[in-house]
């Protein structure tokens, strides 16, 4: 058995239960804190799967920036993000969609695991900054998608500022 199995299982359990809490929690602040736990568990999983650079990115971008941004927005909301309770029809539809999606995903993933998606001994060579950097910056690999994320972020900034100013108070 893999020596990493116990920590991987622990991180998976934490990720699942914190995600469940995000979905079911009534208070928005509690949901954000659960999202932080979820993000940390996912970062641990990345680190265990030999993806150190992605784990650091997850910690900095998700736990550090996005979750804190969510926290600020929830704190800015007038009633602390009070939410109407879901109607029974909505709950039924949501659970139905979740179950159907789960069945579809497991049907699709079955052949992938049966085909022997093994964790080979190649783990030591991947995940280095050099290797990931070559994937991101070598022409013909992921260079163009990576460069396109820069205008994407710029458009996101301009969009959110424009949205806020257009809707904003006359001041």
């Amino acid at each position, binding site marked *: 058995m893999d020596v*990493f199995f116990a920590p991987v299982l622990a991180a998976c359990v934490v990720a699942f239960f914190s995600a469940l809490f*995000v979905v079911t929690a009534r208070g928005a602040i509690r949901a954000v804190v659960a999202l932080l736990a979820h993000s940390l568990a*996912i970062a641990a999983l990345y680190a265990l799967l030999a993806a150190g650079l992605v784990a650091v990115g997850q910690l900095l971008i998700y736990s550090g920036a996005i979750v804190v941004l969510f926290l600020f927005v929830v704190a800015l909301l007038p009633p602390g993000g*009070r*939410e109407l309770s879901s109607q029974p029809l909505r709950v039924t539809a949501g659970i139905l969609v979740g179950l159907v*999606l*789960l069945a579809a995903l497991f049907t699709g993933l079955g052949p992938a695991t049966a085909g022997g998606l093994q964790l080979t001994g190649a783990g030591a060579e991947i995940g280095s900054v050099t290797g990931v950097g070559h994937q991101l910056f070598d022409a013909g690999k992921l260079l163009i998608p990576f460069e396109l994320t820069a205008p994407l972020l710029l458009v*996101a900034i301009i*969009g959110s500022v424009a*949205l806020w100013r257009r809707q904003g108070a006359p001041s």
Partner: protein
Amino acid sequence: MLTTVTVLSTSAVLFALGATGVMLRRNPVAMLMCVEIMLNAGNLVLVLGSRAQGNDAGQATALIVLVIAAAEAVVGLGLALVLFRNREPVDVDEPRAVRG
């Protein structure tokens, strides 16, 4: 093998859970959090595939997905704030149109 199956089924369950949350919640901020869970589930499969294949491409793609998630969170939270400014308590079914 067991590790692979565990991580793969966790990510499938997380994706379905996030989709359920998007359907279930009426608060736009909570819906965005559920979308973040779905993005994390997808990223987990990318990283797992990268590890199984011994190839860095999956990890590089996961980094790009992180950037896209950040852009999505910024625009989504901006929309949520605009919704919350006028109506309270907020309900995503209520507004018929958002100017902007």
